[in-house]
């Protein structure tokens, strides 16, 4: 950047920060966290909401966005039924089909690819979503679904600094596979992709090797590749009132098929970690607004202490800089808006320029991406000093329907209203 480098603006003292109405965003009641699955456990596939959203964030991710290559609604429906059956089996730790890996006709390719044989269910969750392009693409109502597109399921605007690669963005469908074991997550995606050949094709996919968010108070806050605790103030499973207000789509929000579902925003964020690593500890902490060790808001002592955005240092500057990440992303700055972050660290090899191709695969679930994510990202893209060290290279929004009742399949309420 040039003279207007955001880094130079660091510590810039503006007018008094008018931050009235700082709400108690951090005080969650530690509710029953007994539903956290054991590390090799089985997360129920069916329920009121899809698993993989408020499920305590597993450590590993394989996320895939797919395009539907058929124009035949019936064929799409058949695939979704087939996917659901296989997904339910895999989340229970089973092969895609009974005996699928090695016990069927030896002259035929195995029905299950086999790399998860002998591995436990590993808390595998498979979360399904649909993108706006499923409803309408290039002005074509592909499956007679255009009228069913929720108005809030729309492409995100371009934000300042975006370097979005179309090949890493969008998609008609998504499947988020999370598990304690990366092999289990990859196995699930690979087998579902295989079943889809001829009906769907992979548009892009992303591996995440470590979670960067907690979705339950029972979990410790993990760190992102900048070395900081991330998502301390996340929405969490133990706060059902906040979830209804901020996470789950409510009846009346849009078409009924999405009631009790949620939206997921996916952003592939490349981090220039080599540059970040040359930044002093003090500057790193000012950029984030927290201490690196404990994760406490600047001026406080413990991670979950409430951030005091009004506090000033001895020289009169705000204790938490005006452009600090946690200030810009706080509910207080954003009219009470919160999201459920469920992102993952990634390193996709190297970039051919001597740097690691590393970053954060940002995933966040919310009730309305345009009322929640968009204002937040606008504020960050405009002022966040952190933007100096990152660039958004992929972007997508999907609507994830509610959980499935016994016998129901992914997308059934959309396809059979």
């Amino acid at each position: 950047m040039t003279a207007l480098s955001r880094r130079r603006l660091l510590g810039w003292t503006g007018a008094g920060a008018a931050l009235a109405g700082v709400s108690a965003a951090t005080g969650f009641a530690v509710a029953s966290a007994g539903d956290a699955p054991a590390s090799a456990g089985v997360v129920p596939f069916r329920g009121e909401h899809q698993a993989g959203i408020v499920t305590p964030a597993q450590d590993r991710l394989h996320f895939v966005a797919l395009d539907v290559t058929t124009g035949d609604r019936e064929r799409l429906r058949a695939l979704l039924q087939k996917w659901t059956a296989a997904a339910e089996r895999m989340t229970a730790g089973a092969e895609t089909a009974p005996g699928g890996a090695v016990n069927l006709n030896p002259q035929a390719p195995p029905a299950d690819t086999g790399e998860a044989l002998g591995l436990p269910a590993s808390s595998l969750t498979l979360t399904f979503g649909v993108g706006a392009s499923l409803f309408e693409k290039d002005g074509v109502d592909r499956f007679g679904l255009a009228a069913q597109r929720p108005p809030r399921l729309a492409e995100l605007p371009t934000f300042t600094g975006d370097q979005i690669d179309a090949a890493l963005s969008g998609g008609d469908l998504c499947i988020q596979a999370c598990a304690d074991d990366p092999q289990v997550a990859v196995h699930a995606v690979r087998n579902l992709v295989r079943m889809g050949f001829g009906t769907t094709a992979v548009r892009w996919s992303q591996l995440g090797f470590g979670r960067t968010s907690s979705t339950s108070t029972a979990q410790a806050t993990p760190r992102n590749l900048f070395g900081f605790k991330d998502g301390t103030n996340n929405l969490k499973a133990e706060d059902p009132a906040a979830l209804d207000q901020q996470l789950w789509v409510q009846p009346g929000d849009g078409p009924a098929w999405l009631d009790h579902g949620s939206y997921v925003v996916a952003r592939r964020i490349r981090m220039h970690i080599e540059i970040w690593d040359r930044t002093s500890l003090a500057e790193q902490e000012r950029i984030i607004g927290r201490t690196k060790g404990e994760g406490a808001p600047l001026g406080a002592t413990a991670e979950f202490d409430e951030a005091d955005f009004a506090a000033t240092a001895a020289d009169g500057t705000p204790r938490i800089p005006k452009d600090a990440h946690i200030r810009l992303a706080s509910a207080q700055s954003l009219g009470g808006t919160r999201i459920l972050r469920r992102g993952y660290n990634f390193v996709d090899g190297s970039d051919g320029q001597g740097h690691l191709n590393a970053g954060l695969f940002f995933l966040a679930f919310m009730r309305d991406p345009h009322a929640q994510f968009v204002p937040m990202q606008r504020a960050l893209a405009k002022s966040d000093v952190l933007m100096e060290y990152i660039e958004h290279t992929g972007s997508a929004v999907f609507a994830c329907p509610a959980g499935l009742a016994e016998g129901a399949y992914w997308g059934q309420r959309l396809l059979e209203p």
Partner: protein
Amino acid sequence: MSRRARTGIATAALATATLAGCTSTAPAAGPGDAAGGKPISVRAADDACEVSATEAQAGKITFTVNNTGNKVTEFYLFGTGDRIMGEVENVGPGLTRQLIVEVPDGGTYTTACKPGMVGDGIRAPFTVTGTAARSVDANTKLAEATSGYQRYVTSQIEALVPKTQEFVDAVKRQDVEGAKGLFPVSRTYWERIEPVAESFGDIDPKIDGRENDERDPGVGFTGYHRLEKDLWVDGLQPDSPAIADQLMADIKNLQSRVSAVPLTPVQLANGAKELLDEVATGKVTGEEDRYSHTDLWDFKANVEGSQAAVAALRPVVDDKEPTLGPTLDERFAAVYTLLEGYRAGDGFVLYTQLTPDDTRRMTEAVDALGEPVSQVAGVVTS
């Protein structure tokens, strides 16, 4: 040439259907060939395909194909799913060739002439009445499948030999442009039956090896791709004529050995799958024809060869898994439709003219086809 271990068709001891004489595709008209009804004459022009009868009795049916046009032509009798009941390839202008086809079942078939040897051809329905005496249990159908495919292999070799000769002759008379034009055409016949040809582990590396293949000491880089490199990159070399002669000798060696290859239904099915694997790993990537960039010719030929093997097995597939056949038909058709979008004259655009979006679409279509084709081996052995 594929890098896979040669699960040699030639070395497979499991042959359940050894094929003796492959008499259906006769190279030239001869007395006494028409064992069934009277021969049906076919006047194959550049823009017409006049078949003297539209109906015949089940059993041996003889077609006498006369090319009255100016383009090299082919004549086919197709069953359901474009299963090739019989064909004659490479019928030059003015020539007459005979095709004897075994058609045991009555039903609706399709005749087709392919002037210029491209496209779907000029087609017409053809009715076969009655049923020839035979037992129709599954083993018989499997044996018919392998013998039918063997006829296909034979027909391709019969076209491969003269087309390669034309290519070789052009190289030897230093006709670089002529040889460049013939290179992808002669390879078509090779690529259609590549898994069978590859089963001869000693011949395949000589005919279709790549420059960077590991070779035994003293063995040089020969065959199609050596001549390809000479023609497109290095210019013809002092030993190019010798390389060309060697290619011809190797092809003839293949011809002399291929008819004795016993094939099993599983080998047919796996061959169909391997041809698509070849497309996915060698053609969509531009790896095969890295100097000429004529990969789409090979792409099409691989798919055609795969379809021929699947079509030979089709009656068994239809008996055991009725939903698979229509899926195969649709996915093969989708690949051909996609490829037709890259036509340039009688051939195709060069690989270097393709965008990443083009190759992505091709990969998607081949993936969509590869999955059902990979099911065929399991179905025919179930």
